[in-house]
């Protein structure tokens, strides 16, 4: 069972999405999505492949533009931001890619140092090294600092990807399929890491997944996406108490099969 973080105003909305539409040609991916993420909260977005889960978080971070609707992050309307304001906002929103997206020509240490060098040019080398050490310690991979991404396992790459995002101390974390393609033990480690990040760094998160174990252990709220709309939102027991066919299928596939 997840525990709540103290000293956080959980009423404050950090992400607010209203009537979000996004199409690619005639493929209507998102068809009127509404979502609120509160400070300190973890929302898990569940849905089958191709339902627009990743598109949703890419719109939040400004990698994709919505066709209609409003996307407000930390009080700012994302599609209306200019390049400079979007850059500033992105410092507060961390995005963890499905496969880590580590820069494969750089070592782990350099991967972590790169965003710091570019975004905090005044930081001394000593401070930078200290921050990298702290993040690597938090994700339990201090020994990999000199290794190249090609030398890491899938789970380690994902953890380093999370670490690289944490290095800029974001207020919001967006996780794209954090446990996809991993063995159950590594999945549990990633789930624990997501919870630890939430508590230690006091982040609010949206976690995209179709892994119910991940959803159950990391999510305060579960939102189920079907055909471009959320068909159900609530805590795990509320959502999976539903008779909705997709939800039953998900549950049975994950916990009974």
């Amino acid at each position, binding site marked *: 069972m997840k525990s709540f973080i103290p000293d956080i105003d959980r009423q404050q909305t950090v992400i607010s999405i209203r009537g979000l539409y996004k199409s690619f040609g005639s493929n209507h991916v998102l068809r009127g999505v509404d979502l609120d993420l509160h400070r300190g909260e973890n929302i898990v977005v569940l849905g089958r492949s191709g339902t627009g889960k990743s598109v949703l978080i890419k719109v939040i971070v400004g990698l994709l533009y919505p066709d209609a609707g409003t996307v407000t992050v930390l009080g700012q309307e994302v599609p209306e931001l200019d390049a400079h304001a979007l850059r500033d906002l992105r410092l507060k929103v961390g995005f963890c890619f499905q*496969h880590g997206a580590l820069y494969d020509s750089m070592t782990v240490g350099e991967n972590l140092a790169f965003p710091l060098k570019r975004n905090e*040019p005044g930081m001394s080398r000593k401070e930078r090294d200290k921050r990298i050490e702290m993040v690597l310690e938090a994700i339990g991979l201090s020994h990999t600092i000199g290794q190249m991404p090609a030398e890491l396992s899938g789970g380690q790459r994902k953890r380093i990807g999370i670490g690289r995002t944490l290095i800029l101390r974001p207020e919001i974390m967006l996780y794209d399929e954090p446990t996809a393609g991993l063995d159950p033990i590594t999945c549990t480690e990633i789930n624990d890491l997501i919870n630890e990040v939430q508590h230690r760094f006091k982040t609010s998160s949206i976690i995209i997944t179709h892994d119910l174990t991940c959803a159950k252990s990391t999510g305060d709220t579960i939102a189920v996406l079907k055909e471009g709309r959320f068909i159900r939102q609530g805590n795990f027991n509320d959502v999976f108490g539903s008779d909705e066919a997709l939800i039953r299928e998900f549950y049975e596939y994950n916990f009974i099969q």
Partner: protein
Amino acid sequence: MEPIEQSDKPVISKQVDGFFITVYEIFGFISRFFREVLRRPFETREFIRQCFYIGNRSLPLISLTGFITGLVFTKQSRPSLAEFGATSWLPSLISIAIVRALAPLVTALICAGRVGSSIGAELASMKVTEQIDAMEVSAINPFKYLVMTRVLACTICLPLLMCYNGLIALVGAFVDIHLNEQTSMDTFIQNAFTNISFLDLAASLVKALVYGFTIGIVSCYQGFHASQGTEGVGKSANVSVVVSMFLIFIEEVIIVQLVNMIR
């Protein structure tokens, strides 16, 4: 608010629409380059690294092709000049050919193959593995870091490589002329440079700058707009080389026409 309905129906045909969209995107890409080139931050370290990679690592291939070009071109030209008893014109003929056409063109074609494919594949691989998106969301400008540095390095290194290629080609030509006509180094240099004008040198430098920019911008564009996973990486590398070479030949014709109008 309901979204505006998007139509999949092409305006003219899918191919024609695609062509115009690509042309529009390429002009957007080039104009972004000129808009951002003088804006901070300047990625000096990455630029130097790219210069080293493009320049220094191309030297062995440039040396070999330069030497062979000079040597072979001299060997091929000798019989024709010998018919008129004019082999003493060889240094002059060869130097004009090297400076005006061979050095810029050979250097550009080699760099299009070696550097263009490498940049196209590298950026395409970064694109399909979401590394470019990862830079965007880390508030790093990937266009500045990846495109600007590579295009500038290509544009600056190509004239230097061209000068080096021309010199090595002249060495190749001298070796063949010295072995066959026993011409001394002093006489060769004197004859070789008598007919080379400032316009020839300036035109070659301009050509090399234009070719360098073309290789850089084409391969970066291809890499930056890669899709379809690993297949897209190969396609980007291939298209970078083919389009760069095609444009280099077109530019060669245009620049030669312009220089002849000035001459």
